[in-house]
């Protein structure tokens, strides 16, 4: 198999710009492209799984000068998740996807995948912007008051964030004259301390807006609430996961210091608590799920910050949490289209998703919590452990309420829609039972 | 609720003498106290006359009692209750009617609503005359009843079984009870089913 990771970005990007030509068949073409991308992502995942890291340079320039793509276990898994769920989600959206929607969808996918596989920090910024612009448009695409409001909030915060990211990049560049993440990581020690920290703060704030960390996540509830189900589902697995991946790179590769670890850890803990507590009283399902997402992102952030302390359990934990959250949350967002769960498939999807989020074995969410606990135990973070438990109980409480409220038969979802939800939820089981995540997390990371 | 009857009459003579003796010395009574004569009961029970020395004790329910003491006049309404209580008692059982009212209506002889001749509706073993009788009279009546039991002459309950239909008919008449044919048959069947062993 010829491995060209660039295709993961190129195919959706090119297709996105072809689609307006074939308006009528736009959705079908987009579907084909996403399907191809999914297949390709799976291929790359298993390639990395068996052969290790992949590097690809673009346009012949070698790093550190040229732009290059680097795929290690972490990126491969995230690329797989983004493209896999993108495809399933697209199937679920089905006829609602016209050619404009498909184009934006492809752009969002391309951007998210780009963030995950790029090795260049400015490139990452560009992909961030592509993802963000596509997301704004997708959210606003529903064109009702709520959607527009959500989009505007996202836009305002996103624009501030992009400025901060750019400033951060500029600060790094001013010192090191390089944009290659490898290069930066290698020479980070030579940076002036204040500028180093300032750039870290800028980057964390900027990416943090996308990664839904508290208190940068003001847009999250509104955007999720305003967006249509398919878009909310997309937001929950593509941009946010890519952004948290970027923070992980920041933590693991560029700034692997104790101070940054501490900040990320406590920001993660606070995000977790605030998210879960805010979700506790929420009446609107999508808003509740959005807050719950915030909480989950906090937990993932905790896992990554622990991973930066070179704890293998934390990395496994974070990957399991990402998988579980992507599978469960996207499934639940799709389910929020109907007030009630009706029929076997949708019941199955709803319950499995909730159980995985709560952390019931042998679903993926359990392994996430389990390894996170082990990692936190290694660091003797008693308070963190207890707070995670507390947040878990709060989460259980509102999900229990949610489950009770969605008993009933008065919904109308098409069979295909329900099947896709069930397929998404199945990945929580699949990844929980198979040793894929465990194995891949123990492979060495690039730059690490 | 006609339960106590029997075409084949059980004969009181078959009872052993001991049973009669025991029965006579342990008369438990349930007193039906709607009439004015009830006022005479407390002295009989308490220290002045103390009927417990003869083994007579007041009981709360007809299931436990041997003697039904009717203290005075009965109306149509109370008669129904008396009959029910009587039928719920377990034989051998005795009835003592108390005061003139139960004999001939007494001072209510011309009332449209009182029962004049109690004997017509339930078998009375012993009457106590007077309006109203003194406690001595009551004690005396009990002693008389004991004597009758000992001699085997207090057999009102057997009479009630033997002439059950007649008693019922009288009762129905006073209750203005129109008996339909089917209902009669039903009662008959019920009676047969509950026939005494």
């Amino acid at each position: 198999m010829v491995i060209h990771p660039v295709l993961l970005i190129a195919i959706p990007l090119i297709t996105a710009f072809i689609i307006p030509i074939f308006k009528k068949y736009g959705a079908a073409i987009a579907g084909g492209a996403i399907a191809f991308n999914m297949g390709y992502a799976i291929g790359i995942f298993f390639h990395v799984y068996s052969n290790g890291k992949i590097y690809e340079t673009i346009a012949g320039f070698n790093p550190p000068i040229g732009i290059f793509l680097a795929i290690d276990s972490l990126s491969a898994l995230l690329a797989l998740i983004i493209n896999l769920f993108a495809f399933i989600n697209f199937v679920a959206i089905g006829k609602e996807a016209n050619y404009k929607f498909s184009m934006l969808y492809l752009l969002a996918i391309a951007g998210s995948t780009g963030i995950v596989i790029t090795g260049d920090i400015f490139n990452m910024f560009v992909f961030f912007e592509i993802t963000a612009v596509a997301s704004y448009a997708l959210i606003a695409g529903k064109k009702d008051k709520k959607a527009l409001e959500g989009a505007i909030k996202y836009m305002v915060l996103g624009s501030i964030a992009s400025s901060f990211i750019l400033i951060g990049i500029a600060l790094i560049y001013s010192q090191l004259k390089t944009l290659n993440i490898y290069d930066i990581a290698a020479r980070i020690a030579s940076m002036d301390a204040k500028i180093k920290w300032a750039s870290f703060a800028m980057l964390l704030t900027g990416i943090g807006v996308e990664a839904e960390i508290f208190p940068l996540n003001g847009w999250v509830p509104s955007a999720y609430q305003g967006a249509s189900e398919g878009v909310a589902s997309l937001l929950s697995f593509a941009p946010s996961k890519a952004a948290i991946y970027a923070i992980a790179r920041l933590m693991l590769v560029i700034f692997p210091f104790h101070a940054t670890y501490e900040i990320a850890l406590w920001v993660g803990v606070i995000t977790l608590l605030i998210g879960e507590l805010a979700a506790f009283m929420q009446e609107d399902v999508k808003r509740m799920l959005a807050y719950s997402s915030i909480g989950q992102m906090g937990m993932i952030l905790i896992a990554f910050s622990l991973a930066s302390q070179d704890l293998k359990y934390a990395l496994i934990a974070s990957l399991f949490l990402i998988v579980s959250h992507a599978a469960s949350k996207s499934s639940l967002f799709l389910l929020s289209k109907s007030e009630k769960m009706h029929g076997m498939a949708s019941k199955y999807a709803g319950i499995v998703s909730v159980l995985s989020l709560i952390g019931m074995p042998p679903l993926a969410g359990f392994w996430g919590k389990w390894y996170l606990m082990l990692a936190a135990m290694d660091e003797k973070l008693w308070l963190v452990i207890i707070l995670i438990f507390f947040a878990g109980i709060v989460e259980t409480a509102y999900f229990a309420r949610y489950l009770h409220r969605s008993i009933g038969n008065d919904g109308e979802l098409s069979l295909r829609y329900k099947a896709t939800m069930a397929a998404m939820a199945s990945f929580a089981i699949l990844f929980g039972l198979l040793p894929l995540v465990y194995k891949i997390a123990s492979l060495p990371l690039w730059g690490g | 609720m006609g339960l106590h009857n029997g075409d084949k009459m059980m004969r009181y003579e078959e009872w052993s003498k001991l049973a009669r003796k025991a029965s006579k010395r342990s008369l438990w009574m349930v007193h039906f106290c709607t009439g004015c004569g009830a006022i005479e009961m407390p002295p009989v029970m308490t220290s002045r006359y103390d009927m417990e020395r003869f083994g007579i004790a007041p009981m709360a329910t007809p299931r436990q009692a041997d003697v039904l003491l009717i203290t005075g006049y009965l109306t149509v309404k109370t008669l129904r209750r008396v009959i029910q209580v009587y039928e719920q008692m377990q034989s051998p059982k005795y009835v003592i009617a108390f005061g003139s009212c139960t004999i001939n209506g007494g001072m209510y002889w011309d009332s449209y609503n009182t029962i004049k001749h109690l004997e017509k509706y339930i078998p009375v073993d012993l009457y106590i005359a007077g309006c109203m009788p003194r406690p001595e009279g009551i004690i005396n009546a009990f002693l008389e009843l004991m004597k009758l039991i000992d001699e085997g002459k207090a057999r009102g309950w057997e009479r009630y079984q033997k002439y059950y239909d007649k008693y019922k008919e009288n009762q129905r008449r006073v209750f203005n009870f129109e008996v339909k044919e089917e209902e009669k048959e039903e009662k008959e069947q019920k009676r047969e089913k509950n026939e005494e062993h």
Partner: protein
Amino acid sequence: MLDIIFAELVVAAIITFFVREKLAAIIAFFISLLPLLALLDWASNYGFAIINLGIENHMKIYLAGVTLHLAITPLSWFFALMILPLFPVIMLYSYSFFKENDGFFALMLLSLFATFGILLSRDMLSLFLFWEMMSWSSFLLVYRSKDKNAIMSYLIFSVFAAFAILFGIIILWHENSSLLLSDILNISGKLGFVAIASIITGFAVKAVIMPLHAWAPFVYSKCDEPFVAFLSGGLSKLGYYGIFLFLFSLKGVDILQNYMTNVSWNYLLAVFGALSAFFATLIAILQDDLRKLLAYSSIGQLGYIAIGFGIGTPLAITGALFQAFNHAFFKAILFLAAGIVAYRTGKWKISELGGLAYKMPFTFMATLFAIFALAAIPITSGFASKWLLYEAAIQQKYVFIAPIMLIAGVGAFLYSFRILYGVFLGENRHDSVEEAPKSMIAALFILVLPLIIFVVFPGYMLDLMKPALQAAGIESIAHTKFAIETSLAKYNSIAVLITLMVAMIPAFVIYKARKHRVTSFEDNYLAGEPYELHKPAMHAANNYYKPLKKVLLPYLEPGATYYFEKIYNGIKCVSNAVRRIYTGYVQDYAIYVVLFLLFVMGWLIWI
């Protein structure tokens, strides 16, 4: 063999999900017999001797990168003997209970799978894994009830329990760097104390020890009866299995005592057990909902097991295990019988039922036996277990616990009679009710058998639990087939039973000496009033213990549920406060962003 059973259970669970209800019941019945066969196989291979299977005999399962160790031990064998027979019985019962197959049998088989897994687990991770599988498979069964309180309280408490156990397990893992149960001993001090205490707390939730019982009344009173029979009879025993495992088999008692020698931690467990026995009994007396009554009665009866474990002497532990065994069976009978009553009449309120004994004589008889066992009447095995516990409390001179236990035992008479009178005796209110279907009756009487066997031969029960106790280093108490002897007194079951039989002779002579006539229900003494006039007021079961209620209710009013609700509402308030952060104004959010930036910069640069 184990792997085959596991595989068959899963496959059967999937199959039963899709087939029709009768077929599903039949499949489930036969499949649920398999684990019992495994038990018998083990018993026939190894006898009742103490065989602690070596590590090489473990079965291993690889799952998501970890290895699970499974093997059977004497302790798990004994508990399996207690819990697993419930499953085929429940399947048999459910054969006619359910109108349509909506996943009950599949979920029950999953529960069986998880139960079997818990009992076989030899490392903490697999114990936890199967424990949680049990939690969610039972949660899905609770979910079928569609009752808000039941769903929420069960899930929240399950997760709380899971976290408590998880907390203990990770501490143990961290200290021992091993998850095998055989390695747990190398821990002491504060951490060991916290770990053991937290694990015990977690198991106590499922073992419904007050004040962690708040979920039980909701769940027990709303779910399908066959499931509740398992929940009360089986699942609670798994909680006690966990407590026994960590306290006695793994010597958690010593860990607790070594940390703080001047406090008797065991005694604390006993006190909680005593409190749950006492208060749950009093609350049960005042209930009108049949299922709620049984739920509280369950809590009370399970409290005795906690007392036994808390006292911790061989005598007490023997009594507690015996009580656990009895409770599994008699409480299952009671819940199944309650299910039959509801199946035939559709009513739950005791005050609305009545007079079913003559309509359903067999159900009544089974219930009567169960109630004899519950009330510890010495003609069922329920007495022996309570007797052992009383003896243990006196032996240890526990002057606080012993009277409470005894008075709770008396309280059991009160609510047992309420069931008997309110449901089965009293006014005949259901003319068209029939006896339950044969499969249900059969299920009940299968469960009655052990109660009879072990009253005649209480010694056999002690023989059965002997290997488990010896494996935990607890000596078994002196006994023969019929008699149990302690340092304080002796209990000879056969003397009681034979004397009772003999004493029946004069009673029977009196009974037969004179003939009697059976009268109809209507022929009742009501001060001469005809029955028709009194019809609505005939049954005294409405508000039965009213005088007691008047006295007790002020003391019982703010129950544990009240405090849990307070906590819940407190979190609600915090939540309301927290979500005000999201003001809805994008300007505020922008301020947050700037503040966050400044905060991070400040932290990194100046601190």
